[in-house]
């Protein structure tokens, strides 16, 4: 009888699911803000992985946690720029639907 105690693969499965769902979000949403949420999901997936690997690392030196902290900061910066740009787009076109933002094509 196997134990149900969660190990490293459990966390990785969570990370993989978050990543796949984030990807699904970015490829199907048409609202720019919605797509950005998908990006946040992807970044979180990476973070879950980092922290989990760090925890189960046989010689722990916290580099995974540090990495994940930097990722959080980067995500914040990314969100700031992205939302600023979304606002700029909204001011110019009165919509943030990316299916309508296709002046640049072919």
């Amino acid at each position, binding site marked *: *009888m*196997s*134990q*149900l*105690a*969660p*190990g*490293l*693969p*459990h*966390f*990785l*499965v*969570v*990370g*993989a*699911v*978050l*990543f*796949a*769902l984030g*990807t*699904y*979000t970015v*490829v*199907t*949403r*048409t*609202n720019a*803000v*919605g797509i950005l*949420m*998908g990006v*946040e*999901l992807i970044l*979180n997936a990476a973070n*879950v992985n980092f*922290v*989990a690997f760090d*925890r*189960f*690392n*046989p010689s*722990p030196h*916290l*580099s995974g*946690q*540090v990495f994940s902290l*930097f990722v*959080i900061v*980067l*995500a*914040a*910066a990314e*969100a700031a*720029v992205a*939302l*600023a740009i979304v*606002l*700029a787009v909204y001011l110019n076109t009165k919509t943030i639907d990316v299916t309508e933002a296709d002046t640049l094509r072919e």
Partner: protein
Amino acid sequence: MKTVAGYATVIVMTAALFAELTMLVPGLHWGPSEGPLLTVGDAVFYLLASVAMVSAVLVAFSKSILYSAIALLGALLGAGGLYVLLRADFVAVTQLLIYIGGVLVLILFAVMLTSRIGQASATNPATSVVAGLVLLAALGAVLGFAAAEAPWKGAAHPLELEATAERIGDLFLGHYLVAFEVISLLLLATLVGAVVVARKEIKE
């Protein structure tokens, strides 16, 4: 109220499903092989993981941008909870402060500014769902296989750790000093860039 109840039910059911899968998929046997079948800590893991995953599903599939935003909160909270479980208290706190306190508020702000909520029935419409689902399945299969089967550099018995904040502080100002300094430049540059893009034109 009905929504919340449904949400809770789905989470519990997902948690149970996940636990069930653990017994069926050989690659997921990783932990100790003796002791009680399911401790409270283990149950908390399944619940938190389900919160994160079910919320992520909502983010991905919800037709309303506001629902998506709130579900994102759930996903981030779930991930934060997992960090606590992983004894990464500092990361968990940062997640709360920056992600939920900062990024999510920013996103909500943008939602409010750009969407006429209540007017449009679908504020977060989707296209090419089938193609997306195919991609989702392919990604899930590849990543799931890799996650479950790969020979990760990991120990079956993670070491017990004390609080990490102090040691992370040491690392920031020691080993990772240059990254710490450069990311400040990045934040400054990003700030300037974001302001330049978003601010109103100065009329001279």
